[in-house]
């Protein structure tokens, strides 16, 4: 849905200039994995706020349920048992979902005008009414987040509760988190908060603690505090240096301009042909 109180900064497959009069605060959600107890209250809050009810599934031999993101589960907890130091087990529980990249691969890849937008506060949102279900956003996403619904063939993912934020509320998951592992605010404030957490973790022996705000996608509006920021892959495969797929890069960076150029050149060629050769006149003799 287009929300009047949030300006759209970027819109898929559109060249209309964006509004730029209002001064919007750039926001971010910070997920502190060292404080997460994996209670899944955020998953429940997400379903409740967004009127989603996923299937009652199966246990597949792990605590993760639903086992993966779906069109109806926009966030899931991923549980990883790791031994970074020998004989020192850690259970790293990561809340997975859309990272709301500053440079969103999904939006870049999307061919349908206005199906994916980025608000001026940084939130990347899908407008399903414009979605054609092509799945390019999945290719475009470096975090494997969007899912196409079998029910309506449209792509879904976390909205960062853009509807709540537009009216001054925090995301539902933030509101419900019992330990304060998820916090929300201005991106600058969140980075500052994370610095305090990293200092604390370092004092507790996590020498490689750090903030996950990957620059390969221009930084994200969902960030993590990691105990082992040097090894994000420990956290159920969080990519170390995510970047937009080369395919999308090719499409947007080289291929699309080239293609546009190609189309332009064809038009130009026709024009010059006309100038040079004149209108395509039918010769009298042929008519006969």
């Amino acid at each position, binding site marked *: 849905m287009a929300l009047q109180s949030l300006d759209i900064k970027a819109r898929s497959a559109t060249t209309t200039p964006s509004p730029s009069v209002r001064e919007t605060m750039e926001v971010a959600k910070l997920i502190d994995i*060292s*404080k*997460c*107890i*994996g*209670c*899944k*209250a955020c*998953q*429940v809050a997400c*379903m*409740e706020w967004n009127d989603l*009810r*996923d*299937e*009652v*599934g*199966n*246990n*597949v*031999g*792990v*605590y993760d*349920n*639903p086992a993966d993101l779906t069109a109806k589960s926009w966030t899931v907890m991923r549980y990883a*048992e790791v*031994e970074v130091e020998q004989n020192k*087990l*850690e*259970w*790293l*529980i990561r809340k997975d979902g859309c990272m709301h990249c500053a440079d969103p691969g999904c939006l870049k890849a999307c061919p349908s005008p206005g199906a994916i937008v980025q608000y001026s506060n940084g939130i990347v949102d899908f407008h399903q009414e414009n979605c054609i279900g092509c799945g390019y956003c999945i290719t475009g996403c470096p975090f494997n987040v969007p899912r196409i619904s079998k029910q309506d063939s449209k792509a879904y993912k976390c909205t960062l509760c853009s509807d709540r934020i537009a009216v001054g509320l925090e995301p539902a998951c933030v509101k419900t988190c*019992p*330990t*304060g*592992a998820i916090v929300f605010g201005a991106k600058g404030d969140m980075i500052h908060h994370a610095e305090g957490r990293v200092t*604390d973790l370092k*004092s*507790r022996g996590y020498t490689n603690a750090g903030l996950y705000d990957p620059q390969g996608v221009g930084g994200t509006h969902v960030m993590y505090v990691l105990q082992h920021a040097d090894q994000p892959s420990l956290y159920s495969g969080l990519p170390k240096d995510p970047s937009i797929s080369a395919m999308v890069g090719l499409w947007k960076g080289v291929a699309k301009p080239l293609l546009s150029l190609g189309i332009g050149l064809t038009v130009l060629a026709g024009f010059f042909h006309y100038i040079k050769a004149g209108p395509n006149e039918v010769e009298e003799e042929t008519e006969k």
Partner: protein
Amino acid sequence: MASLAPTFGRGAMTNHWVDIKNADLILIMGGNAAEAHPCGFKWVTEAKAHRNAKLIVVDPRFTRSAAVSDYYAPIRAGTDIAFLGGVINYLLSNDKIHHEYVKNYTDFSFLVKDEFKFENGIFSGYDAEKRKYDKATWGYQMGKDGFVVTDPTLKNPRCVYQMMKAHYGRYTPDVVSNICGTPKDDFLKVCEMIAETSKSDKTMTIMYALGWTQHSQGSQMIRTGAMVQLLLGNIGVAGGGMNALRGHSNIQGLTDLGLLSNLLPGYMTLPGDAEQDYKTYIEKRAFKPLRPGQMSYWQNYGKFFVSNMKAWFGDAATAKNNWSYDWLPKLDKGYDLLQVFENMNQGKVNGYLCQGFNPLASAPCKIKVSGSLSKLKYLVIIDPLATETSEFWQNHGEYNDVDPSKIQTEVFRLPSTCFAEEDGSLVSSSRVLQWHWKATEPPGEAKGDPEIMAGIFLKLKEMYKKDGGAFPDPILNLTWKHRQPESPSAEELAKEFSGKALKDVTDPKDKSKVLVKGGEQLNGFAELRDDGSTSCGCWIFSGSWSEKGNLMARRDNSDPFGIGQTLNWAFAWPANRRVLYNRASCDLSGKPYDSKRKLIGWDAAAGKWTGSDIPDIKADSAPVEGINPFIMNPEGVARFFAVDKMAEGPFPEHYEPMESPLANNPMHPDNPKARANPAARVFKGDWETFGNAEKFPYVGTTYRLTEHFHYWTKHVKLNAIMQPEQFVEIGEELAKEKGIKAGDHVRVKSMRGFIIAVAVVTKRLRSLNVTGKKVHTIGIPIHWGFMGVAKNGYITNTLTPFVGDANTQTPEFKAFLVDIEKV
């Protein structure tokens, strides 16, 4: 309850949820707060964030609490006394105790009777046949002045300190590691961290729950933890305490109101068969001080009791009829859950009213419970949901394979309301009575519990009136002065619990001074009288609804001292005190040990105790008067030596679970009587249902998951989505041995039956080295059954043994024997 009261005087969580943020060290053992109490767990994260607190988790499983801990140590299920006994030994032998505290505020110097003995794992007075102790020798040496003899030098070998030192000296780190399977280094690291808090300005809080209570020696596990805390001086202080986390939002209220079969409201006790005489009944409970000048607050028992009887029987309770004492049942024995089902199984019970309870799922040994219910003539279920118990007679395939044609029990379902559909108060773990308001109307024909009970009562009364009966008096004389007799309001009931003056109540020191006028609500239990002039349905709740109004409904969260003492938020029993025994947070002169976390202190100028809390001592009693902090104990101090208050001995001793992977108790390998708890009650016929390690080599332990609440939330789609299907957890090593992969279906069986579930294979369940052999643990969540919207599953309590703690009879759900195979 059964362990804290014998130690400190009151059977309740000493501190409160918010206070956990004041701790320097948090020990989670015998519980899993992050999963079972995720909202309360926020105070642990507050302590970590603002006090740089450390969190230790000791558990057989690496839990979600362990996931955010600073240190985790594994332990074999059911061996916590050995572990904590080892901690006591460490603290004593490394001199890491709070000397001033233990000397002044505990029974360290008290002398124990010479006849008291402990030999080869058994205390003096044991009757092996009855599995019971004669506790005559479990007491103090009494002086001619009627007080306990003490030795302040602590040199007398019969003083509690010396005896305790000898008792726990046997629990060396090697012995602990051998029994518990905890690697020695891990154990010593935990000891070191705990020992740090013996300093006056450092505190540890212990958070525990059913992981301690659900053992055949559960009460003694809790007591051992309480003893550790006493040695460190961590009781009565902010950020300290023994914090018993309650699982149901109102389970604290249940025991407070005396809903256990042997209790009256406010932890008064029902008389036994031998106590037909009213005077003896009161005298036996109105303890006289055992040391000079102590408060021994139970001396007021008569006032609590008479006021209670006035609340129940009104004008019919008079001095002449001993306040209707004869109308109270006199117990021949306890009628706990296990005893009642045993009686039912023997065909001695006709009808069973089952209110807000699902015993087919919640009680141990499903086959026995199901068989018992089948022998009833009628069963009444008062519950908002269709439970496994209400449908126990239906065949649900493999999950409840019964033949309905063979079950003649008539089942009545009376749909009741959920908490959000009614007004009333809930008592939290923090002893806070918090009022809540109805959010929505109940669906369909559902009625509130008071309305249902009133309906049954009024019908019974009518029948007794019309037809007479064997013993109509208590029914006919019960007061029932409700504006709507068929539906007593929550407000009326709350006022009755809080109590009122029936006549003017005057100051005993100055009879002309009226404290509270006849007809008015009381200000607190200090105004209770034993002459029939006051009425109070639960003395510890007294003052929660005074003439000032409903104090439980207060919502002022101002925190003037900044340590979470919000005295104007709702109402905490007793007397709105937030931290029990808070006098112990000060030295003898009344100065707080830690001024930054001051609860109370003696204000000489004002002539009273002042601070952030309501003093847990006579408010104007100067320190020189020498009233000690544990005012409910006749000793005035806390007990390391529990005298005759515990079933299996004054000092906790390690015994194996009733079903153990070991053939004998490593502490007493030659004494089979001391293998498991010698005082645990086992019914005839149940011995045969216990398995041994040859057939069932693995330790089974049951527990809750954060995604579900007991057997309720499998009826809720959102919860069912979060954790849809029954599973068990096994370690990687055992999985490899048995050829089990994550996601496989496995059969877990005990001597009593089997369940089939999905296998979760995990690093979080380690095999432990116990007495030189490898012990594997299988984790078995509860929560599933054959009703609701989650995937149907087996009732986990199919597996568990029909035996409980020797004091409370709480079933041993946490340690038993199983076998496992791939299906």
